[in-house]
């Protein structure tokens, strides 16, 4: 008898609808309005790569040890360096990082002995061409500058 009454008065459906209804209250809205509202990115986030420079003199921290390139499963980092005859140290000449193949696993970052290479919180990595996804030393040092659109 009770089940029939429940059936007739659509109790099961109304119950579900009530759940839907009470979630519509504005304080329950959790959607992020992305371009207007920037998401909070965790500190450890592995996003766009950056090659750190010494803030005092603008010199790169990278010691051209090539460890990151060898740690990378995709072998997408190329470190170009030259031996400086005066200081007997290696000078970094080029550094390319192909983000189109990168899986942001963080192994390169872990391998770097001087924390020169870092995966940062920037996540807007889209580019118009495949070539645009290959970062050279300049982009890596200055960081990506996504075009800002005004809505």
């Amino acid at each position, binding site marked *: 008898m009770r089940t029939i009454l429940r059936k007739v008065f659509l109790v099961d459906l109304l119950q579900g609808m009530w759940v839907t209804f009470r979630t519509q209250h504005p304080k329950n809205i959790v959607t992020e309005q992305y371009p207007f509202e920037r998401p909070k990115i965790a500190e450890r986030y592995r996003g766009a790569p950056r090659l750190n420079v010494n803030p005092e003199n603008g010199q790169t921290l990278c010691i051209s040890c090539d460890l990151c390139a060898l740690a990378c499963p*995709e072998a997408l980092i190329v470190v*170009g360096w030259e031996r400086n005859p005066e200081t007997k140290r290696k000078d970094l000449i080029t550094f390319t990082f192909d983000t189109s193949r990168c899986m942001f696993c963080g192994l390169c970052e872990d391998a770097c002995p001087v924390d020169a290479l870092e995966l940062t919180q920037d996540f807007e990595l889209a580019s118009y061409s495949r070539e645009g996804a290959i970062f050279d030393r300049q982009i890596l040092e200055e960081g990506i500058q996504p075009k800002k659109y005004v809505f």
Partner: protein
Amino acid sequence: MPDDPKPEGTPSPESAPSPEAAQAPVTPPVAAPVAAAKPPAAAAAKPPAPAAPKAPAVMASTAWESDLAEALSAEFGGDAPECLTYLGQPFLVAKPESIVPLIQHLQDAHDFDYLVDITAVHWPERAEPFDVIYVLYSFSRNERIRIKIRIAEGFKPLTATMVHPSADWLEREVYDMFGIEFDEHPNMRRILLPDEWETFPLRKENSILKMDQRWVQENLGIESGQ
């Protein structure tokens, strides 16, 4: 599908996935001490499919002493599989012809009623180049064992589908990847790769970059998948 993880070649020097190429740029001599200092990296830079060092070093397995091993030797007499264990995981080495009767017997008499997996390993230097491995589990005994058979090129082991229907796709996958055909299998076709594909990718002679050039050109209309 390309054997290679990268979708298409990027027009840069590093598009070649081999790390040797990646070191090419402005690197003048001096590379030797650097490489020597970093064993992990040096090892990583090895070309694909490293040859097994020397004669295949052997696995330090020991004889497996258990009720099951004894029971099997009593039941099969001279044909009994060799019972070994490594890292606490027992495995049997059986004769290729007796594999299905053995699986059947393990199911009937010892309750190994769940076929977990079938896979293979290719050892090109060996006279019998393939290991086919069956993993079995018994719910009532809560025990897992592996059975291994060594087969020669061209040998067709009998299919296990009549004992465990789950062997169907697993055997097809072994065929797809290694080219080991299973006798009397109801549907011995490729499963993951396209039917017309020609190579067997998990054989050691096929490097990671190897693909069926003809198939790619005919079906995808591109010169190469890399």
